[in-house]
């Protein structure tokens, strides 16, 4: 239809045959740069934290584009869309403005282990970064964990949340780690963001080095006398896979195209 809702004389107005429809779908997929139609299996048919976060980014971009077209304000303001993990910082908006692609990764493994010899709890997380399109370079990456306010027992305590990049695994002893850490109050609630840009770059360049992340929590209390005691992530209020959908941990990476994509003739 043209602007006046009249069928343009040059337009083919007939129902497409099945194979024509399939060809048309293939062409549109090709425009989107996809070799085939994805077949995802989102759990429960509902969005968890990662799609909600990404939808928040999408709305931010769309509103910006709309404003630009309409000549209104061209400045980013973070959206408050609780309980989804909203954009929290202006630094993230800079990543977003600079990115050609943003991708969130599903957490593939989440085992909580207690090493009795070292009296240490830790939780493992794994992300598959092998499906990133060629020519995309990571400009920033974050590991996001949701922390809920914990029970009275710890209310006035602080915790030390340690996120380790597993560098090398050994059969009979503990793995080698690269450490990122964060000190926070037990009563704090919200998303914890850990910068894992260097780690993700390594994982993209060398998938064999992708041995995941480990998270452990210990008390570092101003009040508690048990400073340095390892506690379970649930005790510390860290939401896991079995928690609320919108609070599940995930990883997000921002990409910039480093190569010119040329569509090949089919």
């Amino acid at each position, binding site marked *: *239809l*043209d*602007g006046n809702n009249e069928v*343009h004389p*040059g*337009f083919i107005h007939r129902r497409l045959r099945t194979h024509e429809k399939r060809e048309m*779908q293939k062409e*549109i997929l090709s*425009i*989107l*740069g996809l070799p085939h*139609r*994805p*077949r*995802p*299996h*989102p*759990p429960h048919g509902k*969005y968890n934290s*990662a*799609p909600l976060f*990404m*939808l928040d*980014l*999408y709305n931010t*971009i*769309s509103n910006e*584009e709309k404003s630009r*077209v309409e000549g209104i304000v061209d400045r980013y303001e973070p959206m408050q869309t609780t309980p989804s993990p909203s954009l929290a910082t202006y630094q993230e908006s800079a990543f977003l403005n600079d*990115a*050609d*692609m*943003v*991708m*969130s*990764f*599903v957490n593939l493994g989440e085992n909580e282990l207690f090493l009795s010899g070292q009296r240490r709890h830790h939780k493992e997380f794994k992300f*598959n970064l092998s*499906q990133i399109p060629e020519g995309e370079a990571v400009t920033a990456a974050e590991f996001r964990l949701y922390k809920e306010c914990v029970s009275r027992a710890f209310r006035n305590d602080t915790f030390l949340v340690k996120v380790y990049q597993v560098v090398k695994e050994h059969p009979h002893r503990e793995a080698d780690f690269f450490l990122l850490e964060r000190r926070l109050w037990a009563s704090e609630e919200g998303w914890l963001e850990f910068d894992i840009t260097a780690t993700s770059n390594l994982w993209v360049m060398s998938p064999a080095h992708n041995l995941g992340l480990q998270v452990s929590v210990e008390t570092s209390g101003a009040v508690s006398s048990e400073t340095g005691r390892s506690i379970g992530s649930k005790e510390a209020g860290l939401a896991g896979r079995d928690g609320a959908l919108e609070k599940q941990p995930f990883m997000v990476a921002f990409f910039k195209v480093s190569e010119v994509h040329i569509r090949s003739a089919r």
Partner: protein
Amino acid sequence: SAGGGKRRQQNRNRSTQPQDGSRGLGPAVADYNSSDQKTACRRHELFVSFRELGWQDWIIAPEGYAANYCDGECSFPLNAHMNATNHAIVQTLVHLMNPENVPKPCCAPTKLHAISVLYFDDNSNVILKKYKNMVVRACGCH
């Protein structure tokens, strides 16, 4: 030039009385202002619906996008009414001189905009990608 003599004669016979502003400007303008206006190069609306394609299970947003397309004639005089490149004007003149061998300029996009698409991949990871040059904002002759 000698080339288009016969064609110009035909145009002259076809043309009716030039109206108001076009008086004295020649038959081509008079022709253009009547029936050619409908077939002139312009933007047409075309919505690509991801919903109609049955892709809601993997495309989260948007439901579709107004891709639009350009269609129509690029006829003399170009710069009087549309967004034409300098070369398109030269191309039109050469076409007028040698219509059998030299085609008219093409009606094509002159302004394109980007869209963002949010979708799942096979592993249920979510991708937000900017696609440049997906929406035709304006058409013109090239």
